[in-house]
């Protein structure tokens, strides 16, 4: 009998200017990270609406990570500062509701940090995989 290893579903929102380019750089340098990570390109991390994150969990994502330019380096000068506040409050709220806090993360990855991107994704996938399936914030109907 073959036991299929549990593979978490990870949604990564990456800003176009830094983190998406960082992910590209990881690719250029052939720095491997798990295939469970799927990237959605957004112009800026501040485009990420908390509703998208909840949507991902509803649809069965096990972890959501948002990557943007380092604070101070935002292509739009201040976008990631707003992201930082929004996600600080959202994550704290999810934690308050008893959702495992390890399932959400914000990481600043510059266009030069391909290695950091790969390392972050490796770590995040490992952390989420250790938690197992997202049972607390999923909508079972989606699995029909």
């Amino acid at each position, binding site marked *: 009998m073959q036991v299929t290893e549990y593979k978490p579903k990870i949604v990564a929102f990456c800003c176009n200017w830094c983190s998406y380019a960082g992910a590209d750089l990881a690719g250029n340098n052939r720095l491997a990270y798990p295939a469970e990570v799927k990237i959605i390109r957004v112009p800026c991390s501040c485009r990420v609406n*908390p*509703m998208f994150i*909840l*949507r991902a969990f*509803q649809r069965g994502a096990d972890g959501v990570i948002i990557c943007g330019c380092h*604070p*101070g380096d935002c292509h739009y000068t*201040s976008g990631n*500062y*707003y992201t*930082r*506040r*929004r*996600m*600080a*409050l*959202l*994550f*704290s*709220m*999810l*934690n*308050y*509701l*008893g*959702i*495992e*806090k390890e399932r*959400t*993360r*914000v990481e600043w990855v510059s266009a030069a940090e391909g290695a950091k991107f790969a390392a972050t994704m490796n770590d995040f996938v490992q952390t989420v995989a250790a938690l197992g399936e997202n049972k*607390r*914030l*999923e*909508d*079972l*109907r989606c699995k029909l």
Partner: protein
Amino acid sequence: MQALTREVLLDRAKALFADGTVDRAYGWKRGEFDYDVTPGLFRSVEEMEKEFVFDDFCGANFSKYLVEETRKGEGKILVFLKPCDTYSFNQLLTEHRFDREKVYAVGIPCEGMADVTKLKAEAAEGIRSITAEKEGFVVHTLYDGDKTVPRTEGLSERCLVCKSKKHVAYDELLGEDGEVADSARFDEVARLEAMNADERFAFWQRELSRCIRCNACRDVCPACTCETCVFNNPNSGVESKAPVTSFEEQMFHIIRAFHVAGRCTDCGECSRVCPQHIPLHLLNRKFIKDINAFYGEYQAGAEVGSRAPLVNYTTADLEPGEAVQRGNEHA
């Protein structure tokens, strides 16, 4: 017992009608029983003399009604504002939701409003009448005689942890203005924070699973004045009419709390109206508590035009990871 009587408010309203300052007035209307006071719009002194009431059951906040009503008619609207109502009033002004010129606001002191459910719990079946006495609320029951509920046990939770007796907006003030209180309103949030994640999840699962999606919390909320609510908008991706799964209950309440984060004045109306008694204010208060801890004290509605924390930032804000940690340490 309130510091001001119905007559004081009524006399002032009469004078304002008489000198043409206002042509309609928001006030509380007498109900069937002692406790079911209805917020209403009065168009004349006569209507007010007949039905206007002011007592311990006048919890309703009129601020939200001004959004629609100020768009009608030319005259000014009289509105009575308790201290907590003034915060909602200011917050709506900050968001340009109504024309200040169309309103004549009379600040009135508040001694806390009764929670009918608490009083009803005393008289399991049948309340003949309720009177507010010095020693507390005296509930005259149908079957079990009179029961006295000490005032502190009959008041709404939001009044027991009242954040402010100070009016932050008014054209005139009746009675004395109070102070911003050093309230214990975050104690319950801290108690939840001290639990572990499983306990918290169980708590919220238990509470939120009772939700019937009647939308009363949203529809009464003075911060929820959107022209079209995302939950009514089929294109928003979150529209839903019923709590189909436990996910949707959580989703509705998380999104709603997030949408009003930084704008919620903690008026407590959401929990007051919930037919299922879900402590919804504990969601909003968590955001307020976090905002205070992370970004410095901020009271929505304290001043008109203030920049809400979610549309603001500093370069030294803490990271989301630290925020979760701090939120956990119930700092």
